[in-house]
């Protein structure tokens, strides 16, 4: 009965240390923004090429009031979501296959590694020729970007599952399905979640490339539009929205998966 005590003490100690929650992460960006605002306000620098936060904020409000902002965000979100979905599905399927069967690995891996070496932007002309200028080619480009980190991480993770744990499953006469569900899946989950997050990051990267190649709406279009019309504040506004959306979707993903990964015996810095 006495033994669990030191454990709760350790937890209490960790909690007692002030960590300011997530607010700490805001200090530097907010400080920089206020500093820039003050410099421009005092007339010390010209805010035309790097507009101060207030001007970017006003631009965002304008775009929102006209309803344009929602249209652009929606268009981009749909592209990322679809591309991410297809990228994850194909990466998971083929990654699982290549991890589970060495025959499939020998068949597919060399080709996929070669394809991976191609900068994905290089596909753009071909995708436009094949799938046209509209949504299909954009979604496919994003899916290609998402595919590779998922494929790589998953096939690698399956192959590095501890043989000793699999043997425990054999002793308890697990069927193939139980082996996957009770041992392989939980064992690969940490690397899979990291791969999902890396894939999502690449999805956001590729949506910009996709929207550069000709779109009439979307945040990437807003970027190009701001450049064409010489409005740095429009470019900044869409960059800010990208940052917020990217961070928010990444947070969603990690918050949604955290409860499955609480068991990990990993390095937890508390300074």
């Amino acid at each position, binding site marked *: *009965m006495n*033994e669990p005590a030191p454990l709760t003490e350790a937890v209490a100690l960790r909690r007692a240390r002030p960590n300011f929650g997530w607010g700490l992460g805001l200090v530097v960006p907010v400080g920089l923004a206020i500093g820039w605002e003050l410099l421009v306000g005092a007339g010390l620098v010209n805010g035309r090429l790097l507009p101060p936060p207030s001007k970017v904020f006003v631009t965002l409000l304008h775009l929102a009031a006209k309803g344009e902002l929602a249209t652009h965000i929606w268009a981009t979100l749909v592209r990322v979501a679809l591309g991410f979905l297809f990228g994850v599905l194909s990466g998971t399927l083929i990654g699982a296959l290549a991890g589970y069967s060495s025959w499939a690995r020998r068949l597919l891996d060399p080709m996929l590694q070669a394809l991976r070496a191609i900068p994905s932007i290089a596909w753009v002309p071909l995708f436009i020729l094949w799938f046209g200028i509209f949504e299909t080619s954009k979604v496919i480009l994003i899916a290609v970007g998402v595919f590779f980190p998922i494929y790589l991480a998953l096939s690698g993770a399956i192959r590095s599952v501890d043989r000793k744990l699999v*043997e*425990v499953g054999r*002793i*308890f*006469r697990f069927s193939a399905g139980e082996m996957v569900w009770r041992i392989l899946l939980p*064992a690969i*989950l940490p690397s899979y979640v990291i791969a999902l997050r890396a894939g999502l990051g690449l999805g956001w990267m590729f949506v910009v490339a996709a929207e550069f190649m000709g779109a009439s709406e979307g945040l990437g279009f807003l970027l190009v539009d701001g450049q064409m019309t010489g409005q740095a504040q429009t470019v900044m506004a869409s960059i800010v929205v990208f940052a917020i959306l990217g961070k928010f979707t990444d947070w969603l993903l990690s918050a949604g998966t955290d409860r499955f990964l609480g068991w990990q015996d990993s390095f937890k810095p508390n300074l």
Partner: protein
Amino acid sequence: MLEISGLAKRYPNGHLALSGIELAVPPGEILGVVGGSGCGKSTLLRLVAGLEAPTEGFVAINGVRVDRPRPEIGFVFQEPRLMPWLTIDQNVSFGIRHLPKAERQSRVGEALARVGLADFAGHWPRELSGGMAQRVALARALVGRPQVLLLDEPFSALDALTRTDLQEHLLDLWAYDRPTMLLVTHDIEEALALSDRIAVMEPAPGRLRVTVHPPLPRPRDRVSLEFQEWKQHLLTELHHSLRASRQGDERFPAAAI
């Protein structure tokens, strides 16, 4: 009754790990298997467990051939091998997943209480010491009430104090259902403290050198003269077996791996 007859194992690389093993272990007996490294004692245990198939001969339990892992057989590995993503009680219930939930819970609670870890049911494996984790592994192996419990150097990774403590604890656990136990170890004192009978193996190829039946009273007194004499006797046997192995190494240089 555990029966091992004409058992031999040759690995695909040609290495003969085990040859001509004959053993009959009556129900409830604790059989210690000692030998130097590379004498095939772990291979023997893996064959009995049905984890690997013999090249010749067979293993039978109550007349039924063992050709794959069986519910009558429990296994404790050298390491605890707990699933890090399952809590302690979930780990223990791994082996009785087919039982209804209520029965499962009561059996897991009982097993954890027997190994003295009832308070740790909801903890993660990472929160346990090595000795505690190995006790969980014992609980996991015993919760399905196997007739035969196989132990592959189960305490060799623990410090001396914890090891002695767990050896005594293993005897207490054995007393509940009195399963047949096959204890593979390279620790002669451990074998003498626990076993009714001790088989000494010699390497290259792995075979039984001699089987002894030390008439020591239980509980075993590790500092008694008799105990020490038996220890000396087994050490000598082991020493001879290792000398045989050195000649063996010359005949099969690759076998040392």
